């Protein structure tokens, strides 16, 4: 009696295991797309009732109210009356896809790249699409002072990391540098045992990197005079030059100040991540103009550094004019309910506009991608999510996610729905990264 359901489960498991076919785009692929009738929240600009979004070649060609925004005659029309259309969500800090960076041998390993480890077929990426996410900063963990190079991913349908990564104009994969202070990166030697030692080790390596850069400049291209290639210092040189943004894990108020102090000393472009005690030093953060990537979790504690985490972090920073983004830290929180984090910030007093910006454009700015994504404007990538209603209502569902004018998630598709809601097979092979949860639970 049990055979039939078992077989059908097996069949569905097999079909899940196969990567989604990269379907032939077909003859309509070159036609423009028109999304008509939704309430559009472009983030850059006021809400548009009964709006029209025209997409051509993966980019936004036009956006505006129906009256005044002509739909090209040859466009493929999508009727979105009653729906809400928002920019694709940008997660500035994720761990989906089994990213690896540094190993456990030493505390400073900036030469390690997430690029070389990522599995973009991991169900975590499908779940992220189901949450309306279209861009991720995938990072190594926080168990090191410098744990490696992060990667910025565009959640296209694709089966290689190369197909998904953003690139700098020179063609190299784009990403930041992950750093951390506080207890996660404190361990037995050669790891630091105190906060003072943590800062000293970081200053020492950046001082070396600065000297390395100077030596290269002095060599002026002469191979005889160039210092031997040092990948570790090369990565830090990219942070010193400002090309590579430093994503700095930090919780406690004093650690937040230390992170900013080190950034000042070496001229680093940093983003503060988690920033659990941001409310205690909100003035200092705002005065220095350092952007924050916040996480809100459902209860305080769980580790000493998050004792005073507070939903008010968003509004306290917003009031002072600081740049605020949110992140999932997936699997700490689930990408499928990323909108909820903005809503919880609203619950604590943040403005709705500010919270939606923090889930989209502010994240794009933090990743140096605001010229391409984060808001719905002509010329930007056609990355967006179609919602059943108010972005900050629990009853709202993400119905579709689009990347560069291609649908990458559809709640009406049973397979996509499985990833959106969970159930048998939804997490097959999913890798979980709970940053430092394994180090004794709350160091």
């Amino acid at each position: 009696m049990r055979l039939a359901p078992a077989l059908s489960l097996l069949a569905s498991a097999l079909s899940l295991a196969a990567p989604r076919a990269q379907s032939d785009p077909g003859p309509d692929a070159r036609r423009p797309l028109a999304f008509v009738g939704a309430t559009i929240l472009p983030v850059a600009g006021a809400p548009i009732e009964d709006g029209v979004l025209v997409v051509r070649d993966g980019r936004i060609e036009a956006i505006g109210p129906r009256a005044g925004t002509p739909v090209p005659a040859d466009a493929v029309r999508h009727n979105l009356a009653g729906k809400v259309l928002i920019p694709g969500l940008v997660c500035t800090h994720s761990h989906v896809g089994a990213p690896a960076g540094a190993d456990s041998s030493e505390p400073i390993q900036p030469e390690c790249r997430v690029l070389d480890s990522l599995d973009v077929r991991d169900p975590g990426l499908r779940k992220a699409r189901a949450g309306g996410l279209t861009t991720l900063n995938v990072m190594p963990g926080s168990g090191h002072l410098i744990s490696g190079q992060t990667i910025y991913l565009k959640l296209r349908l694709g089966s290689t990391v190369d197909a998904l990564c953003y690139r700098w104009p020179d063609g190299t994969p784009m990403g930041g540098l992950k750093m951390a202070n506080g207890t996660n990166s404190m361990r037995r030697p050669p790891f630091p045992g105190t906060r003072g030692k943590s800062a000293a080790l970081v200053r020492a390596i950046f001082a070396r990197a600065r000297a390395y850069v100077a030596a290269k400049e002095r060599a002026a291209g002469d191979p005889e005079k160039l210092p031997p290639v040092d990948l570790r210092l090369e990565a830090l040189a990219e942070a010193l030059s400002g090309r590579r943004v430093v994503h700095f894990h930090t919780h406690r108020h004093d650690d937040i100040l230390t992170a900013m102090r080190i950034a000042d000393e070496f001229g680093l472009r940093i983003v503060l991540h988690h920033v659990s005690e941001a409310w205690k030093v909100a003035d200092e953060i705002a005065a220095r103009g350092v952007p924050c990537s916040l996480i809100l979790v459902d209860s305080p504690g769980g580790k000493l550094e998050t004792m005073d985490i507070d939903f008010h972090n968003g509004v306290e920073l917003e009031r002072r004019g600081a740049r605020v983004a949110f992140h999932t830290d997936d699997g700490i929180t689930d990408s499928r309910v990323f909108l909820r984090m903005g809503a919880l910030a609203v619950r604590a007093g943040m403005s709705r506009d500010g919270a939606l910006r923090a889930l989209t454009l502010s994240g794009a700015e933090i990743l140096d991608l605001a010229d391409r994504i984060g808001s719905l404007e002509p010329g930007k990538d056609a990355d967006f999510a179609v919602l059943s209603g108010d972005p900050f209502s629990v009853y709202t569902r993400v119905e579709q996610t689009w990347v560069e004018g291609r649908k990458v998630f559809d709640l009406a598709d049973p397979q996509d729905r499985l990833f959106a809601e969970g159930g048998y097979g939804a997490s097959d092979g999913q890798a979980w990264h709970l940053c430092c949860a394994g180090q004794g639970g709350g160091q």
Partner: protein
Amino acid sequence: MSWRLVLLVATCAWLAGVAPAQLAVRGALVHTMVADGAEAIRDGVVLVGEDGRITAVGPAAAVPVPAGWRVLEAAVVTPGLVDAHSVVGLGGWLNQEQDQDQLDRSAPLQPDLRALDAYSSRDRLVTWIRELGVTTVHTGHAPGALVSGQTMIVKTVADDFESHVLRPFAMLACTLGDGARAPDNASPGNRSRAVAMLRQELAKARDYLRKRDADDPAKQPDPDLRLDALGAALRGEVPLLVTAHRARDLRAALRLADEFGLRIVLDGAAEAPLELDAIRTAGVPVIAHAPMMRAMGEAENATMRLGAILRDAGIPFAYQSGYESYVPKTRVVLWEAAIAAAHGLGADAALRAITIDAARLLQVDDRVGSLEVGKDGDLALYDGDPFEYTSHCIGVVIEGTVVSQAVR
């Protein structure tokens, strides 16, 4: 003491909410949860008398508030929430060795460990869930050992919690599956060994009960607290709370229940959708995993729709906050039920799953879970739809005492 000081002290006591209850709670919408699908009362009033019990419930037009009573008002009023399974009070908020009392892994079978002896009513996580509407919590020893200990049902008060214990020994916390494996190569090392050990211990307890009931005192065995606790389960006084996610472990639990005539409650149960017929036929209720729990390990097949699936299958269930080993150290059952509400269950059934249905499952519905005359005056107040992300819990009442007016 001058009369001024007396007055000051009395006023402070009143402000702190320790005054004897003569409390009226008025809500634009009062969800009484007295009957399936019953409409909420519009502009309703709940009166709580001096003994902390409800004396009247009804529309404001029909229930006059006696003169001099304290009145609280809110957009929405529900019964105080009932979290069907948590470890708050034992698993402390700091997550440091000294505040983690939810699991002792020195032995696989420790049914004698009482929740009462480890419960810290002033832990910040207890405060946290209280301020978010939870007035009754089923808490105790955590999943992670074959039999980790006992659970209890208690009000979320900070002070004198022993006067607010509804069941000092509510259930026996068991785990089947990988979570039951003992550390350091000790037994049980796998599923078969775990079930064999549990069966052996239950057989031993059955034998013990028989001998203990012997007429001749000389033939009575020495007291054995572990076997006493298992005996309580064998006598049907308490159910086994079996935390399991895999279908085969759910089956193993049902098999055990059948063999020993035990009452069981399935807990977590991520793969219950594969075993709906067996669970329904066995008449076993389910405390469903938190919808936002991480779908990892044995719970990889967790679904946000579990409540809807169980409801449609006719299986009694409640929602829980569950056990978390890291951040967040506890989930909030109100927020979990909200996700379930939005994933097929609907708001009314989701609210039932954290009020009256949870109370029934825990067999404390004679006191809590709905707003009815004679029941405890436990209420939660909100400034909007309790499930909406942007609504706040603005007041909490336990037995007529206002225990929170924080805006959460």
